[in-house]
């Protein structure tokens, strides 16, 4: 895997994650792989950032302050919201959901990762494999 050359169409990443150590690790690995990374620690700020800036990928934790990740995801995917978010949403969580809840979340998201099961490098590999969004 050539980590220095990610798909140039998917370069800008927003990491919504309240565990500072984790976002730091992810940002470090992603930056080294050529992505630009912004971090937001809470749901409300994360949502506004995702809606106002043009991110290609949002890494979204579910247990975050103010607005839950599920709410952020729902808002980002709501067709009535303007401006519409056209990037990818990857759920990164350590929270175990009931299977039906998880299935619901997976339907709306572009990926669902359990953080404890992946290392930062594996996260980069996962993002590199993402298809760029349809124009």
């Amino acid at each position, binding site marked *: 895997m050539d980590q220095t050359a990610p798909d140039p169409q998917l370069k800008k990443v927003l990491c919504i994650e309240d*565990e500072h*150590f*984790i976002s730091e*690790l*992810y940002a*470090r*690995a992603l930056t080294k792989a050529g992505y630009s990374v912004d971090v937001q620690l809470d749901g409300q700020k994360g949502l506004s950032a995702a809606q106002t800036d043009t991110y290609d990928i949002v890494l979204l934790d579910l*247990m975050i302050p103010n607005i839950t990740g599920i709410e952020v995801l729902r808002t980002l995917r709501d067709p009535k919201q303007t401006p519409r978010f056209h990037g990818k949403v990857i759920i990164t969580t*350590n*929270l*175990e959901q*009931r*299977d*039906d809840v998880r299935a619901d979340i997976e339907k709306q998201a572009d990926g669902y990762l*359990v*953080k*404890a*099961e992946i*290392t*930062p*490098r594996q996260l980069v590999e996962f993002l590199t494999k993402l298809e760029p969004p349809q124009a």
Partner: protein
Amino acid sequence: MDFYAKYRKQLDWHIGLLVFAQQLLVMGAGWLLYESHRVTDLTVLLLMSGLSVLGAMLVLHLVRRTASEPIQKLWQAIQHIAPQGDPVPAPALDDLRIGQELVSNLANHVYQMASVVEDVERTNAKQAQDIHANFIANTLPLPLIVIDKNDTIIYANEVAYRYFDIPADELDGKNLYTAFDMSFANEQTVELWLNKVRQDSVTANNSWERVRIGLPGQNKTKQFDLAAHYNKSNPMGYETMLVLFDHTEVYSQDDQAMSFVALSVHELRTPLTLLRGYIEVFDEELGPNLTPELQGFMQKMDASAQQLAAFVDNILNVAKIEDNQLTLQLHEEKWDEVLKTVIGDISLRANVRGITIKTDIAPDLPTVGVDRYSIYEVVANLLDNAIKYSRGTKEIHVSAALNKDGMVETSVKDFGLGIDGAILPHIFDKFYRNHRNRSQIGGTGLGLYLSHAIVQAHGGQISVSSKVDEGSTFSFTIFPYAKLADANKTGDTNGITRGAHGWIKNHSLYRD
């Protein structure tokens, strides 16, 4: 206006006129005959007498017709509304010459009285029904739902509306399965039972435990036991009655236990994520400069963190199985690819102990029907155990082939400790530990219990053969996908939903 007086007057006039006319006729005829001089007095007398009799008979006939006609019409009106006997048409009152108003009036009274009687009867019947439906149904302190033979809800009592927090009458006319997405603890769903009893029973009773309903638009789950009474020929069309016994509170305590586990797992996973992340950073950036010994330590640290992550997943999955929450989505997978993924992920843990995993996967294996995540756990657990109990031996063999029953059989063989024959029958029990042999098998309980449950949920079998000091072989079978899809008679697009203990999350398996 006194219609009777009018009728009497009409009658008097009519009869009086008739009698007067008849008398006039008879007298006139007598006078003419008397004047003619050609007949004798006796003849005149006889002729007049005869004429009188004839006239009287004519008068009688006419009087009878006019006077009795109203009574006849009235009689017909009564007969018309009489419930018994042959149907009689309503009398035509317009052609009545005498007493039309009186008869119309009387007939209307008769009709009105009849309809009052009918109303009273109908009200009585409805009251009886209301007592049946409302009194009994609404004083029953349990939610009650009645459906007809088309699964349409035709009645739900007030308690049911309150229980589901639905506005009154919202359920009437809805399909039971559309209105309620019920999840059952096993494959015996209400739908399946109803389909069966509708074919071969006149009446039947059944009950279910731990039924779940997620309420549409509400973030709540209700849990209850369910009792059903089926009666094919209920005269009111009340084919099946469902009574719910709420146990949400009791059953959701299990859920809360579950969420305690989920919460603990979340808390365990956060430091694990960090540990694995930092280990990776150190390994990548410092690794090349470290001494081989320190490099080895780094790998062992990584392997240990992975093992801990796997154990945390085991805890979670055991909790899910215990709580009937583990659901499997069986999809078509290439088995050699699944095996290679697991072995690739576990190899670090084997390598740090100097163990090599050798594979012998039969070429041309059919695709299998598995839940990728769950079956991954099975292979990973068997490999972890093999690594743990290799005790200095350097190889683990993984093989996969089609067995004589047409199932895909996978074996994990180690050459280490082996398991005492006395323990073998209990090896898949939950947390089994034989106290005499604690040191030998301590800690295996969780993984094997989990593997057993997952393999069974896939419809396969897991088995073990072992000899102390020679090693153990754990084998399990899974369905080739074609066979599984055939057995479940379902399309291959949506996969197949299964649960541990055969838990079916919803009845989609039987739908369509």
